[in-house]
């Protein structure tokens, strides 16, 4: 007696219905995959741009913080837009009896922060080959006294309780960058993201004798 068998496969070829359904399913899958891939590519491009911006912002803040920690004096002047020109004065590391000055400023047109002798913090920013509609902007680059422009109410009130020697040596660095992605097709929306990079620095040497120089 033959065992009962279930036939999943036929050797008679394709029927019209099977062929039509197969083509419809494949077309839907290809369309779906294409849409998902395009959306994911857009997501990855945005993600990459934000990480590039985050890396640059952190680089600027860290380098300026490092210079301020070793500085003997700081002078802040107004710059273009919401930016400051920061002159950081420090002892020459080789000859301890002379002072050098490092000038930090924001170049809004080229979206760069320069210091020293027009040296760039990161020559690779902004990226040379950006996609259509992509751009970066420097919104803010300021050095202000402790809590002078803080959004925190407690810090603004605390400022009135502090001694002048503290206020003269405690600074807030604020660096704000914006990444804009304009639409490439008609009817699309502009997407943007803003990041603020902040550090509070206490310039120790302003309250130490070393600010007068070291003489042998």
């Amino acid at each position, binding site marked *: 007696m*033959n*065992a009962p*068998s279930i036939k*999943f*496969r*036929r*050797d008679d*070829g*394709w029927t019209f219905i*099977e062929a039509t*359904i*197969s083509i419809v*399913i*494949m077309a839907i*899958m290809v369309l779906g*995959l294409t849409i*998902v891939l395009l959306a*994911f590519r857009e*997501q*990855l491009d945005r*993600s990459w741009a934000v*990480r590039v911006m*985050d890396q640059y912002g*952190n680089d600027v*803040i860290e380098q300026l913080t490092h210079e301020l920690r070793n500085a003997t004096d700081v002078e802040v002047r107004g710059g273009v837009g919401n930016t400051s020109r920061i002159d950081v004065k420090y002892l020459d590391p080789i000859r301890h009896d002379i002072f050098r000055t490092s000038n930090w400023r924001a170049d809004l047109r080229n979206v760069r922060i320069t210091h020293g002798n027009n040296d760039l913090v990161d020559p690779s920013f902004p990226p040379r080959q950006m996609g259509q509609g992509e751009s970066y902007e420097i919104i803010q680059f300021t050095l202000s006294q*402790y809590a002078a422009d803080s959004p*925190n*109410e*407690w810090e603004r009130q605390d400022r009135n309780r*502090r*001694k002048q*020697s*503290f206020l003269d*040596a*405690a600074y807030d660095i604020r660096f704000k960058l*914006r990444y804009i992605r304009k639409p490439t097709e008609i009817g699309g929306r502009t997407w*943007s*993201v*803003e*990041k*603020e*990079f*902040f*550090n*509070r*620095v*206490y310039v*120790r040497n302003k*309250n130490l004798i070393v600010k007068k120089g070291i003489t042998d």
Partner: protein
Amino acid sequence: MKCLNSKWRDDAGSIDFIQIVVGLLIVAIAAVGTFQALNFGNDKMNQQMRYRKAMSIARSYVEYWQGRIHTDFDDKDPRVIQGNLNQSVDPTVLDLGDPTTDADDVMCYVRYGRLDPIDLLETGLGVDYWRINVKVTWWEPGTPRNPDYEQSVIFTGTMVSAGL
């Protein structure tokens, strides 16, 4: 017996409907798995960015207390004796996200305990320096607001007082 006959290679070599559907199903499952993995990696990188920002916020608070200890210090100040653990603290923005909406903002909370006076017992000066501990806590987007999912960063610094 005929039921034991293998029928792997008795057709003309073409694919049939069931094989097409099974193949497409496999491709769909692989695609979903791949995109889930890519999303997971992207979320982890965002978490790293927030962690780095939290470290920066913690360090800024340590700098504040280092400046205070150096220039403007009262060791009887309640904030020195007990920190701000028992006070409500305004949240600080950790990740602004889309500037057009506040719904995706990630906020963090900054706390610090008592400033610890350290006496090395070798110098005879009494308090040789002060130790500061700052803790920043936040919750990642999409996680419940309970201690099990709390993320935190602790930053420690030291400073000598102005008398030295």
